[in-house]
């Protein structure tokens, strides 16, 4: 089957670059200038870079000076978490139990980390979290739209909670961009992570929004670019592409969110009809992600069968040596190991059509039966 004949339902992992983005980027690819240089070529490059920065800032309710370009969502998250609790002062990092690995794995680098609990829908338990924070809390991190389940977190309440303890608030908005309205200034967040390729921009660039006055220590070192927060030559072409993608996402937000929500709800309704199948995406949720548990199967087997049927989907969670592990997010929501290993994520994007959803709905019943047989 041709790639074009397949149904790509893994946009949360990466969305194909939009043609308009490629068009926007092409002139800047052949520019020789390093935006840091003072000569003409440098000025040309810098102008494109700063225009990209201003454009992104405007779209997400931030000041241009608050936009730090990074290598992607992971790097943005790493910078937020590692950059905040250095030296004397509060050291504890409070992260929710349902964060992406680029936040959750901070435990490999820091000892003073506490996990904030979520309810069975995967939403932050604000009351319980309050008990775990203290004057020693430097940062609270809560993912805005969960990349596995699509569930929307109470980010304003979490920001307020963090601030009452004198802590900063960070939110991973990678899966939120293009699906919910992001207004950095209004959100209460001090730090916010974005990624380009989830909205049809190029892979390899993202941003960390850093509120004016927030002090961060850089993770890397070098030429001191990006207000000394992220050394290294900023890839101008990628920044231009990022800006184009963010602008398109903003322009199309209302219409796309509505369109995708219809597709999402159609899929959820069909999944609700399947035996021993539980939908893990519960409102309020983003319009583009549906997570479901097919009890009595191995997620890997369902993915194998879906791939064979021309459908690209994923579990949304990490692999260890090539073997999908039970989803930490679902485990945090109180699901069993077996269920957490039997769950899949379907995610939509600009190229997703109703026919993709119908095709999925048509193949699932028999496919899940087969996967149950394979489980034993």
């Amino acid at each position, binding site marked *: 089957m041709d790639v074009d004949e397949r149904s790509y339902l893994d946009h949360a992992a990466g969305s194909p670059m939009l043609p308009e983005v490629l068009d926007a980027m092409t002139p800047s690819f052949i520019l020789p200038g390093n935006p840091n240089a003072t000569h003409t070529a440098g000025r040309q490059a810098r102008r494109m870079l700063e225009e990209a920065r201003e454009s992104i800032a405007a779209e997400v309710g931030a000041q241009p000076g608050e936009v730090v370009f990074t290598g992607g969502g992971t790097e943005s998250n790493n910078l937020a978490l590692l950059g905040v609790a250095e030296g004397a002062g509060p050291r504890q990092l409070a992260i929710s139990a349902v964060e992406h690995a680029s936040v959750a794995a901070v435990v490999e680098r820091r000892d003073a980390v506490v996990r904030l609990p979520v309810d069975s829908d995967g939403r932050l338990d604000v009351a319980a979290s309050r008990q775990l924070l203290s004057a020693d809390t430097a940062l609270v991190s809560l993912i805005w739209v969960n990349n596995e389940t699509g569930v929307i977190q109470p980010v304003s309440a979490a920001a307020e909670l963090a601030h009452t303890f004198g802590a900063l608030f960070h939110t991973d908005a990678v899966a939120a961009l293009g699906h919910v309205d992001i207004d950095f200034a209004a959100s209460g967040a001090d730090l916010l992570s974005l990624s380009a390729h989830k909205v049809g921009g190029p892979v390899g660039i993202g941003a960390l929004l850093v509120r004016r006055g927030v002090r961060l220590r850089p993770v890397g070192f070098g030429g001191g670019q990006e207000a000394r927060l992220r050394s290294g030559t900023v890839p101008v072409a990628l920044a231009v592409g990022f800006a184009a993608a963010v602008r398109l996402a903003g322009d199309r937000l209302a219409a796309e969110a509505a369109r995708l929500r219809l597709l999402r709800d159609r899929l959820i309704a069909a999944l609700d009809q399947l035996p021993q199948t539980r939908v893990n995406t519960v409102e309020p949720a983003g319009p583009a992600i549906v997570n479901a548990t097919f009890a009595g199967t191995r997620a*890997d*087997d369902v993915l*194998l*069968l879906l791939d*064979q049927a021309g459908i690209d989907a994923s579990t949304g969670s990490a692999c260890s*040596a090539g073997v999908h592990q039970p989803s930490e997010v679902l485990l945090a929501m109180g699901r069993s190991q077996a269920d957490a290993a039997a769950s899949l994520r379907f995610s939509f994007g600009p190229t997703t059509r109703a026919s993709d959803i119908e095709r999925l709905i048509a193949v699932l019943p028999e496919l899940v039966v087969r996967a149950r*047989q*394979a489980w034993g």
Partner: protein
Amino acid sequence: MRILAALSGGVDSSVAAARLVEAGHEVVGVHLALSRNAELYRSGSRGCCSLEDSNDARRVADLLGIPFYVWDLSERFAQDVVADFLAEYSAGRTPNPCLRCNEKIKFAAVLERGLALGFDAVATGHYARLEDRDGQLRLLRSADSAKDQSYVLGVLNAEQLSRSLFPLGDAVSKAEVRAEAAARGLLVAQKPDSHDICFIPTGDTAGFLREQLGSHPGDIVDERDEVVGAHSGTQQFTVGQRHGLHLSVPASDGRPRYVTGVDPQRRLVRVGPHSLLRVRTIEAIRPSWAGPQVLGRRHGLVQVRAHGEPMPATIVAEDERLLIELDEPAFGIAPGQAAVHYDDEVVIGSATIAATRP
């Protein structure tokens, strides 16, 4: 056909998969994660199936344009293969884990899962042939007798064989297979074969057994029950072994001594002269059939080691056991090994050696 190709990351399974793709089958590659030993996820290990091997397998699948998955069968493997391996050594027998793996994992657990998912067969890079003889599917030695691996497949039954494929069976030599790998652009063409037991990456079986079963020292006794040395654990010894005995009392005839038996209960290792290793009759239990059952008496060939010589013998087969009378005596046959019997190049069946008589 829809075929599940087991890809170990080695050259044999890679070429096997490549041949199937070329033949126009719908192939899906699967790498088996069998060990829970964290060490195996370090590259450069001597056994199979480290992370490096998994990546090699994935690379081959990508090159062939086929889907690739890693199946974690480590729990079943631990139960069916590793636990059996340890139990056999504890009982003083010498197991063959590769055989057990074929019997319980590759052509059982993997096959079951594959069939349920809609595959028609499992393919491996084993050197063996499947051919139709008189309307029956039979397992045969490979064309290259030096590489023939029909011995480790002899434990499979007719149903398992009907769902198996061995694309390398007609290969003329290993060199030919490597050359083919290179010609196909498979980077694993020059990768050395793994010879060790896959779950003992260091190659130190004695060390592994010591670690798992503990050290239970005891005496080494000769054929007159006299103590002639000491050992640090019976599991390091197998019938026919000559090295590693470190006897304190030399043999009266000045000739080498060999392990003639192992008694873990009494923590004894028995040694004696070469003549005591002589075997004429083998009693083997739990017979399996690679085709139709052939009960009663017949003359054929028997092989008792993976790369052992096929020995002419009279085989009397009953439901529960085989009694094998070798035409010529053999020396040093260890209980626990498989006795695979053939008619010329055709595998008839297999059974586990329980006892031997001179």
